[in-house]
């Protein structure tokens, strides 16, 4: 082109305009388009030091509070099928949960998917730690402990999965390639083996006690006790006995007041083997997210929604005068030991007292009772496992010692109730231990799978619709099977 201006002033002006605009053109420069993520740390610069490892380990514990781990999905799969609990709440509210009580549930029902997803989310966070923390340059013993904590939580999650579904995809590393994404179900024997290996590794490293700042982390005792439970579900009685014998020597004891032991001010007490740590943090609603107490709280009060309520069958299971009945069940119209008067009218005659948070501690606008820890394993469970294993291994004396220790605490100093079990008959003692588990661990999501592993599913839950050969496990979530394009198979009967 030919620019032929007479007026040099105009020419200059034009050049100034063009040049000035060209000068601020940042286009074409790579740096202009290479934009860092804002307010989000790229994963490639994470996993660099001990504080990254600490944060990642913390996230695993936090994850255990989530809805799928503690609320509807968990209660539906681990509690409502039992004879001790039913849906509760208003008849119309979330009546899909009834299908877990009457065993009409089909594979598309959402709680199974919710439970499945939650466990695998736990496992992913553990796998992230186990894959990445070994490469971090940090204190070796702390690193070993972090890895052991991750193995404990991964084992706990797989235990809940294999118990609920049988064969499940076993992921021991973070999947990286599409080929690793869609994997078939691993036979449950291999899953059990993986759990046992994780727990062996964890128990070898984890400390028995922590300084106060770390109270609530997985301990050696927790790993051993969970391993005992894992062994119990596989009838490996020798292992149950040896693990529980070890745990008994680790300094645990029964908390004197059974009812008080479940209150927030007695969390992580001497009886506590493992608890999911939950808290109400003012002005941090994201962290105050456990709905464990809320969904089971007294409906119509400030406390919650009233799901997963005790049944008359549970009431009937208690021996006359057993203080644990009143400690486990909030009856409509009662006044709780903490002084809350429960309305005599309302949707449900009974509520779970083990998840109960006194009304005075509830803060409006926050998840009701979000400060209540979930008791996963208590020492009384360890004693009862010890009793059962001893009995199965032909040692009724030890069995009775452990069993009666639990009953003695339950008595709470009241004479004339809950006499010591004296029989040495193996079957009678077994029945007594099972019965004790039912009342001691009532409303703690133990009963349902306990009865199934005892082989009594049809006998006890049959009248509610439970069928042998099908209901030992729940259905694999239908949409997970859909997403796998058939790689995953369904459990029989669903």
């Amino acid at each position, binding site marked *: 082109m030919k620019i032929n201006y007479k007026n040099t002033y105009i020419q200059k002006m034009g050049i100034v305009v063009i040049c000035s*605009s060209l000068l*601020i053109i940042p286009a074409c420069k790579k740096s202009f388009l290479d934009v860092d993520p804002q307010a989000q740390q790229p994963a490639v610069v994470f996993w660099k030091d001990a504080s990254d490892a600490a944060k990642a380990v913390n*996230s695993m514990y936090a994850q255990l509070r989530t809805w799928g781990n503690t609320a509807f999905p968990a209660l539906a799969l681990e509690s409502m099928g039992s004879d001790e609990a039913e849906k509760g709440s208003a008849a119309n509210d979330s009546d899909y949960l009834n299908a877990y009580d009457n065993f009409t549930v*089909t594979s598309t029902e959402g709680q199974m998917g919710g439970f499945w997803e939650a466990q695998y989310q736990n496992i992913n966070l553990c796998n992230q730690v186990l894959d990445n923390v070994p490469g971090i340059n940090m204190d070796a013993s702390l690193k070993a402990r972090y890895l052991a904590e991750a193995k404990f939580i991964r084992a706990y999650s797989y235990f809940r999965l294999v118990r609920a579904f049988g064969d499940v995809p076993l992921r021991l590393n973070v999947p990286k390639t599409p080929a690793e994404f869609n994997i078939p179900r691993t036979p449950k024997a291999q899953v059990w083996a993986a759990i046992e290996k994780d727990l062996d590794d964890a128990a070898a490293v984890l400390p028995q006690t922590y300084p*106060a700042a770390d109270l609530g982390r997985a301990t050696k005792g927790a790993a051993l006790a969970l391993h005992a439970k894992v062994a119990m579900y596989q009838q490996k009685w020798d292992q149950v006995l040896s693990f529980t014998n070890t745990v008994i020597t680790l300094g645990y004891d029964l908390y004197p007041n059974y009812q008080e032991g479940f209150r927030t001010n007695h969390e992580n007490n001497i009886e506590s083997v493992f608890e999911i740590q939950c808290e109400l943090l003012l002005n941090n609603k994201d*962290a105050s997210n456990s709905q464990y107490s809320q969904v089971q709280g007294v409906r119509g009060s400030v406390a919650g929604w009233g799901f997963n309520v005790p049944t008359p069958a549970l009431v009937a299971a208690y021996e006359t005068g057993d203080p644990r009945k009143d400690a486990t069940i909030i009856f409509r119209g009662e006044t709780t030991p903490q002084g809350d008067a429960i309305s005599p009218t309302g949707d449900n005659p009974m509520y779970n007292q083990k998840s109960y948070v006194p009304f005075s501690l509830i803060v409006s606008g926050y998840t009701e009772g979000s400060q209540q820890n979930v008791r996963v394993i208590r020492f009384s469970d360890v004693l009862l496992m010890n009793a059962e294993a001893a009995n199965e291994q032909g040692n009724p004396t030890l069995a009775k010692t452990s069993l009666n220790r639990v009953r003695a605490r339950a008595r709470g100093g009241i004479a004339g109730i809950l006499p010591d079990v004296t029989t040495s008959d193996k079957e009678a003692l077994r029945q007594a231990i099972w019965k004790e588990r039912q009342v001691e661990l009532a409303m703690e999501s133990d009963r349902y799978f306990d009865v199934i592993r005892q082989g009594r599913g049809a006998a006890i839950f049959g009248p509610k619709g439970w069928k042998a050969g099908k209901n030992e496990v729940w259905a694999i979530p239908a*949409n997970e099977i859909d997403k796998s394009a058939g790689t995953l198979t369904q459990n029989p009967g669903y």
Partner: protein
Amino acid sequence: MKRIFTRISVLAAFCLLTINVALAQNITVKGKVVDGGDKTPLPGVTILIKGTQNGTQTDVNGNYSISAPANATLVFNFVGYTALEQAVNNQATLNVSLASSTQQLEQVVVVGYGTQRKIDVTGSVATVKGEDIAKQASTNAVSALQGKVAGVSITNNGAPGSSPKITIRGTGSIYGNTGVLYVVDGVWYDEVSFLNPSDIENLSILKDASSQSIYGIRAANGVVLITTKKGKSGDPVINYNGSVGYRVVTNQLAMANATEYATIINELSAINGAPNLFANPSSFGEGTNWYNQAFRNALQTNHQVSINGGSEKSTYNFSLGYTGEDGIVKTQNYKRYTAKFSNDIQVLKPLKIGYTISATASNSDDVNGSIFRQLYAAGPVVPVYYADGTYGDANDFSLGGGNNFNPQVTLDYFNQKSKNYRYNGNFYAELNFAKHFTFKTSIGGDFGQAEVRGYTPVYQATQGQRNDKSLLEIKRTEDRNWILENTLTYKNTFGDHNLTILAGQTAQRRKNYYINSSALNVPYSSEGDLYLALGNAADRSVIDGGSLTTYSSYFGRANYSFKDRYLLNATIRADAASQFYGGGDLWGYFPSVGAGWVISNEDFMKDQKIFNSLKLKGSWGKVGNAGVPVNPTTLVVKQDGAYVVVFNGVAYTGANVSSLVPSFLNWERTTGTDIGLEASFLNNRLNVETGFYNKKTEQAIFEIPILSSIGTSSGKQIGNQADLQNRGFEFLATWRDQTKSGFSYSISGNVGLNNNKVLSVVTGLNPIYAGGAGLSNGGLATRTIQGGAIGEFYGYKVDGIFQTPAEVAASAQKTAKPGDFKYIDQNNDGVIDGKDRIVLGNPNPKYNYGLSTTFGYKNFDLTVDIQGVAGVDVYNANIGSRFGNENFSKDFYDNRWHGAGTSNTYPSAAVGSTFNSAPNSFYVEDGSYIRIRNIQLGYSLPSTLMNKWTMKKVRVFVDAQNPVTLFGYKGFTPEIGGTPTNAGIDASVYPLSAVYRLGVNVTF
């Protein structure tokens, strides 16, 4: 638009004036030329004495004076208006009103990076004049487009200050930013609620891929170009527009009254085997009508002043605007203040510079988002207040969960104020050189700041509605965007060949930052207390975040025409976006080509009398959508409150990787083809435009569910997942005429038909389910699957209601109760389960239509606009979403099943059970509607009076927006909206309302 014409006509007139007019024996004819519609004076109208080259033009006030033979005929010509011939008949005064001919091919159209004569346009561009937008009672300019443009679907939300949803030629994107691109004076925006409609000069909607592709990167969902008013040379012209009116709820949903409520709740208890809640339902009488309690006739006020003028070298336009709008819910209101200043300076003959600066401030008192759900659900047996003045408490009536609230408490204790400030503008310099070249550089900036401040005091109003610790929450958001553009245009004519070539470059940066903070126990004795500093120091909370994206682009366009008969257009745009940096196709290339044949300009058409113009056009183009999340291929660490763990009462930060990102992401691109025909007949009185389009979105980006066992927190992964298609047809016809008696009118109708289809999706025939928001019991009301429409409604087909236990026993639904829905066992396997679901409806409207009419007679003008949507379904989620004893609509109450034989269509009161609330055909209703969108009657004071008052124009008007809407849907309004896979689901939408106004337009 008129003012753009003005500039062109000034040039034309300038040429004409050089012709020396010298005729003897003439009389002097004087008069005024005004717009036939709104009676505004028309400056720059050329007036020729018929049969001669002699003429003049009107001045800035529309006045003219010409010396002409007493028996001559004057021809009035003005771009954009129908030419008018008027005999002088020895009159000294000849006032004329010209009928606008906006659809004529001579019209100039604003297109991307320039203007084109309408006749040269080969794509599909719809133009709306600013005055047609400003005229309406809409605070948001886009809202005013409803029913005006074929192929453009507007879904309005009645909340004050809210932005409507606009869809151009169907839903083409599923994820991220699915909205259109707004370009205001060259600066890019995602929404234009900051804009005062009165400041708009012209609005162009680029509908086809060839006209959009010059905006490649962000154009896939359509482009709306807005030009604001610029100054015009001449004495200052002062304009005042003001109106005052009321917004009134229409089509208010009738709910069961207290007696009916108590009756149906007793039925519900009986079904659930519980004792009656109400011993004597009739004792409650009518009870509380919560809608009446919360709604009001809401005041709406508008004031706008503008000053316009300038010298030959420098022009200016200055405007100030105020809009005050109360919400139809008590306590809600919105105020907006706008100021705009633009200045254009001809520095030197070849150099022009100019700028536009606008500032907008808006503030609002908000209502709790749950209020509409509460008003629907609240028990009418609960009084607003007890006799002692305390709040009625649902707990005293044992209503239980689900509606354990008093909506009045929710209104009274919700204290949230939002403030928005936005400053934006652009500066440009335009240099003409070497005769045919124009270089333009422009830099635009947009700075926005928003604050939301909420305060909740300590209170105990009812058992369920209380707050234990006062809470102050402050959220601030900032947007800092800039855009730089350089274009070089070459324009030349070689004999019969016209050629325009445009080359350009642009870069932009968009930065968003937000910070949310809160503190407990903040005192509140005055507004001065509402600072975080006064709250608890120990547990203050603060979190921030942001996003940053950059774009760099080059583009070019060539327009060629031969003898104004054969038109060719080609564009190419290359875009790079930071989202695709290091993990995708960084550069996207978006070409387009368009061709047109102006048949009416052919020699063989010369003698025909049917067509005034006839044009056939076709185009093809590609456009892109960069509206995806920032850094989509970067795996990031999640560190948030949910990962905080507490050991022994002390909180510790947690963080981890819990997502999965694609290693590579391609551009989402849309390929569109378009064929159109434009014709005008009968002396340009009838204009017809019609077009077909086929728009295909390739590699649409969205999230699809992945295996839960991978353990990510969302369970989804973003990627190029699907191909989508929108095909349609548009038709527009306008008739305008003026009778000898001075009655002028125009009738314009448009209809757009669109079919939406998913061509392929990576999940194949494995559907993506969505639409769960607002539904209870985990129901998902929509699915997206290959071969279907995006987000089609999906569920069970109802085949009546179970009347008796025997009927239940004989069915596939053994656990059902009488009064429950009877579903069709589609696969005949004897079980009702997910496999029995079918497609129940389509939330994507098939037809959008509108009819706009204007009538003018003497000093009166009347506008009536009708608008409607047909071939669309909506999902009423309100009926089945229940957790306890929520209220029912009167319609449900009247028609419900309550014993064998009472109904075979409506279920029993247990409609909220998992079984009955599962998505099914009962909840899917026809969402078609037709409405009178706008009626306006205006009267302009006679010009004699104006002259006496030395004013140019005074017009008073009354109008009504949405006074009548007709629909069969049983909710508040079928106009619902929603994101693509959640569209058309009514879960407590903002109610429909009408606006009635009285207003005045004054010009000095």
